[in-house]
């Protein structure tokens, strides 16, 4: 059979050929992972280690922003009414607040209640509040919004209402809080990126050992006329298998670790009575996303690492 005849049969069987090649690649990928078990385990532990460090940072960031956002949400908007406002007008304003979709909760504080609080607070300096009657004080609403972002618009609307004396909202401290949050986010992005780059290069180096052990095989394949991708795919798959397995193992480890940290922290905060202030994100809320992130990073790290490692040996 001459070359032309052979080429003819190749073309006829092109679909069959593809499936056969895919079978070969999948088989090679798995056998190689298994055959170089020690190397694969080395790469695997690298993936697990870097994903774990990555995961710890990720969970810290998630919880930090979660708690800062909660803190922001806990800041109240206080709407003070004019002192000589009629009961009807006050009820009208309350109705407005009640029907506003942005409002999460509100409490109405009557003059008497405000006076009672004041008396309680200044109990020791009673001469300060001598002669003060509830009539000197304003009626007020303490409001929590569903979404912190609505605060400024909501505050403006409230202060333009008839009968509203003043709206109290801690703009400055909130601004500072947002800035802090932004800086923390940016900083952690930098740290995470660095970590990922370091991880990829370590994995590339580990897979390079696997490739190096098989450089003869690659060389022979090149001489016989294998295409670059035909050589590359099994290594690619090997990298992906290692990356995905690493992601799976580190996810399980992260979940286990996080659950114990969560129950510890929740126990501690409960003990000190600050369980309303600090709260960890339950894993169930973010677990799925974290696993997807892990899997993507693991698979991408593994495959990029292997492609980087094979590249040099393809130039024969």
């Amino acid at each position, binding site marked *: 059979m*001459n*070359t032309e005849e*052979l080429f003819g049969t*190749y073309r006829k069987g092109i679909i*069959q050929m593809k499936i056969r090649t895919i079978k070969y690649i999948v088989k090679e990928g798995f056998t190689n992972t298994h055959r170089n078990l020690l190397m694969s385990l080395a790469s695997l532990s690298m993936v697990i280690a870097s994903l774990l460090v990555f995961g710890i940072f990720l969970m810290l960031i998630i919880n930090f922003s979660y708690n800062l956002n909660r803190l922001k949400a806990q800041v109240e908007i206080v709407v003070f009414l004019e002192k000589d406002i009629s009961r009807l007008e006050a009820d009208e304003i309350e109705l407005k607040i009640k029907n506003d979709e942005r409002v999460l909760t509100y409490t109405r504080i009557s003059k008497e209640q405000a006076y009672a609080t004041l008396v309680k607070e200044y109990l020791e300096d009673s001469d300060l509040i001598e002669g003060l009657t509830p009539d000197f004080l304003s009626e007020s609403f303490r409001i929590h919004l569903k979404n912190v972002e609505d605060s400024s618009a909501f505050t403006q609307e409230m202060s333009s209402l008839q009968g509203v004396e003043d709206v109290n909202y801690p703009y400055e401290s909130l601004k500072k809080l947002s800035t802090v949050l932004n800086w923390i986010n940016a900083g952690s992005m930098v740290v995470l990126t660095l970590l990922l780059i370091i991880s990829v290069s370590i994995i590339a180096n580990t897979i390079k050992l696997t490739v190096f052990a098989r450089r003869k095989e690659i060389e022979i394949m*090149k*001489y016989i*006329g294998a295409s*670059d991708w035909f050589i590359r795919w099994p290594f690619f798959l090997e990298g992906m298998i290692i990356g995905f397995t690493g992601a799976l193992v580190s996810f399980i480890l992260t979940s286990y670790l996080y659950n114990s940290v969560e129950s510890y922290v929740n126990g501690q905060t409960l003990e000190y009575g600050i369980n309303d202030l600090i709260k960890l994100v339950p894993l169930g809320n973010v677990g799925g996303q974290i696993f997807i992130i892990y899997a993507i990073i693991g698979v991408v790290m593994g495959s990029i690492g292997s492609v980087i490692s094979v590249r040099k040996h393809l130039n024969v």
Partner: protein
Amino acid sequence: MIEFRNVTKLYQNGCVGLQNATFKIEKGEFVFIVGPSGSGKSTLLKLMLREEVPTEGEVYVNEFSIHDMPRREVPYLRRGLGVVFQDFRLLPNKTVYENVAFAMQIVEAQPKDIRRQVPVALALVGLSKKAKVYPDQLSGGEQQRVALARAIVNNPSVLLADEPTGNLDPETSWEIMSLLDEINQRGTTVIVATHEKNIVDQMKKRVFNLEYGRIIRDVQEGNYTNED
């Protein structure tokens, strides 16, 4: 058909691989390339395989122009060339049969063609009975015969051999050379770089003498050296 036109190969470290080489090898020829170590024998073969690219001049192998050829076409050039090396280069974790079949697998041949052609190639080199043996259980000569079977199993039009008998004793060397001759009789162009003076002298084939990267002699039915 292989043609070199004024081909010069300079390496990056300043070494001269080949200097102004011009020659033509027709289909079905048998050529010995002889000369001292470092005279350019390997460079010549590497240029044909496009392992190296010429610094100057033009190289044609089959229908390919080596001097201006995109990298992605290299596998297709090599599928038309069989290669044999001094150190055999077999895969130790594959049997004799698998080593030969491997060459067909990676060019994505049909399984039925693989099943048909591998035994034919093994029979040609006389190793049918050792198909299931691993390379480390074979003698050097047998290993080189497996490499030969692997080189010809895809029916290449050209067979390149870089000192194929360099690691073998004289008797085994003769066996390998006769096999190469037999492959040549079947129509394959065979090019052999070698140091085997006796064999070259007795086989009476075309001989290229290389020295310092130059082809100083190109004779039909020639001897290893000028002096008889």
